[in-house]
């Protein structure tokens, strides 16, 4: 269904430049992993706090607000380094069930983080029953770990 889009990505000048270069792709890939690590760190510190562990000296909202800035910049770096990797091998990814799975989990994780997780994190403490933030923290952690793990597995199981 989306094949024309994948073909368009494959034909971009940037994709050709990446295919022609020995260094461009691996360096972009390495920076992607670094950006992902920072992003996941900002997610996990918030998830720990939602679970009632880790930085409990600060309110959930305070940790979430500080983490949000890191999430934004690291997320931007993840995107900028992720897109050329995708377009360079767009036709391979079109056949990769793991890539499709990763994208669906990514969409779910982003939506969950921007809506439910965000609301629960900034809600007044004591306003929610104690299990709500815990469940939200656990779901968020599971979703983001699934994105990272399925991403890493694309290399091996296409």
């Amino acid at each position, binding site marked *: 269904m989306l094949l024309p889009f994948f073909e368009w990505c494959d034909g971009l000048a940037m994709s050709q430049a990446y295919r022609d270069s020995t260094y461009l792709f691996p360096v972009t890939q390495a*920076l992607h992993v*670094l950006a992902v690590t920072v992003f996941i760190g900002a997610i996990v*510190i918030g998830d720990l706090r939602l679970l009632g*562990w*880790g*930085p409990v000296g*600060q309110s959930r909202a305070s940790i979430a607000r*500080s983490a949000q800035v*890191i999430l934004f910049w690291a997320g931007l770096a993840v995107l900028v380094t992720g897109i050329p990797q995708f377009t360079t091998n767009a036709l391979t990814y079109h056949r990769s069930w793991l890539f499709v799975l990763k994208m669906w989990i990514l969409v779910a994780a982003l939506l969950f983080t921007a809506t439910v997780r965000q609301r629960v994190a900034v809600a007044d403490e004591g306003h929610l029953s104690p299990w709500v933030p815990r469940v939200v923290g656990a779901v968020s952690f599971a979703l983001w770990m699934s994105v990272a793990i399925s991403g890493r597995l694309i290399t091996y199981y296409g």
Partner: protein
Amino acid sequence: MVFAGLVIMMDLRLVGLAFANAPLAQIQRRLFPWQMASFVPSMATGILLFCVDPLRYYRNVFFLAKLVFLVLAGLNALAFHFKTYRKAEGWDEDRQITAIARVAGAASLLLWSLTIVSSRLIPNNWFK
């Protein structure tokens, strides 16, 4: 990834870029057990992967670079814990200690970033 991510969160606090309203000593104390808990599986699976095919890593420049950065990052963390962290309480008021913490945090950010980047480059042994 969880390990390095949490270490980087602490580093960002040390250099003063994030979580500014969390006292240094307190957030350090509360993140530390989670950093250690995630360090163990990270180290164990890493050693396992190495043992599967050690010759693959022999004379691989990025693998060697990774080990060097890893050791330096470890030494930086040890020095920080045993020298600076001893005087932990009242950190946020002490100008000299916040300056040392900034340097240690910046060094840690750099060294862990280099560890991660060189690690991802291991499959491309460019300089044989």
